[in-house]
């Protein structure tokens, strides 16, 4: 699936909830299923700065696609991280670099990812794109 398609899928999953409570319950569930980072990567090097909770992110390159794994000590954060991984993991560097994250707004979680917010999830998206950038450069050379 393309990034666009996955985002639409997520938006439609969330559209069945009209209550914030259900939305967050679902998010908490998703948090429990985040593709776990290998324990040996849970180092300061992989820590995303600016988060209230700690978030570790790892990226791998296989066949011109990037695969992310992550963890966090806060479960709601993990839920959102999981959404981002679903969207970005297994995509090409170009697709990741081009993608926006408007779907977060569409599912009514905008407070977690608005670009001027000084929270760590914004840094997390930046970090994912940075990985994509780096792989792209490697590819191009």
């Amino acid at each position, binding site marked *: 699936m393309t990034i666009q398609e996955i985002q639409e899928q997520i938006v439609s999953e969330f559209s069945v909830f009209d209550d914030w409570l259900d939305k967050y319950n679902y998010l908490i569930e998703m948090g429990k299923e985040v593709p776990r980072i290998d324990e040996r990567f849970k180092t300061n090097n992989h820590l995303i700065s600016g988060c*209230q909770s700690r978030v570790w992110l790892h990226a791998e390159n296989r066949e011109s696609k990037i695969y992310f794994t992550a963890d966090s000590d806060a479960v709601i954060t993990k839920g959102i991280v999981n959404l981002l991984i679903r969207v970005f993991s297994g995509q090409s560097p170009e697709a990741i670099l081009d993608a926006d994250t408007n779907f977060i707004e569409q599912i009514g979680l905008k407070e977690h990812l608005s670009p001027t917010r000084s929270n760590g999830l914004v840094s997390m998206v930046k970090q994912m794109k940075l990985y994509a950038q780096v792989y792209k450069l490697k590819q191009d050379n």
Partner: protein
Amino acid sequence: MNGFTASELNELRNQFPALHQSIYGKPLIYLDNAATTQKPQLVIDRITKYYTFENCNIHRGVHYLSQEATAAYEDVRAKVAGFIHAAKSEEVIFTRGTTESINLIASSFGKLLFETGDSVLITGMEHHSNLVPWQQLCKNHNGELLVAELDERGEVSMEQYGKLLEQKPKLVAITHISNALGTVNPIKEMIAMAHANDIPVLIDGAQSVAHMRIDVQELDCDFFVFSGHKMYGPMGVGVLYGKQKWLEQMPPWQFGGEMVDQVSLHETTFNQLPFKFEAGTPNVAGVLGLGAAIDFLQQTDLEKIGLHEMIILNYALEKLKSIPGIRIIGNAAERAGVISFVVEGTHPSDIGTLLDKMGVAVRTGHHCAQPVMTHFNVPGTVRASFAAYNSLAEADIFVEAVQKAVNMLC
């Protein structure tokens, strides 16, 4: 004496427009008062009035607006002096806030007195603003930052404090009330102990001025600092009270504007107190707003506010304790203002996020007191902090919301 009656509280709340709004469709319950309080209409109006009719740069202006604004500004200085019972208006310096007040002292008092190897004594519960400036000052003088440690309740051991005083630090800098734990330090005793060793004392009053009567002469502290925005006043204004004998000796910190007397290209003589420490155009609107905030506190009765808050805090504390897995961080015998807690199996930021969705604004994180978090071995806490306008009903909703969040997360 009791807290506010229902109708008194109602009247009081009506003075705060920010309280009457909804967040995600839920009525706002504002329990982040230790970060900053909401502002009563009279403070907002004072600022508006200033910018609408009185706005002008002060001092040295011969024209009407400038003279009026200067008079209004200096009137607030006298009002602040009265509010904290300073001996003289000149002992009140306007700054941008607690942080700037402390940095001013660290720099200027440091220049006056510090030599190689000199140290400062603080406690283990200081806000970064009353920790990092001293840590850096000590570092620059190859001195050691002395730290009176906390016990498991979040209190300072008076015995250890006494021992550390014997190491003759050049200054003691302690918070009146901990913003992370709610501990009220026995500062009167601590000041007396330091003075018995001829050591001057700075009190960080950021968390106390809005909750209790302050008398700097009775306390006999050498410095007392606080922020306007945590006492119902505007942002961008704070106070540094210092005993005249220190302020007279201390060199100026920032240069420019009203703080000079005679300036030639190669020599400058400085103005007298308090102007010596007020460089550049001051925040006149902020100072006038602070004056209005003091009016508000005096009209409302500061002692009654303190009592009212204590009733609500104790009520919330007891109810919270019934939540399974909860751990209250900070259990000092004397406490005020804040409740900090964690819940087993949850992260503070998760609880904060869910409370927010229920309209309850609390702060989560390290509260700019990372060493406190390290001491209690927590990544951060959820902190509810109370002000004059909070109610028992709000405490109920808050505790229920915490219960609900915990149910979702565990």
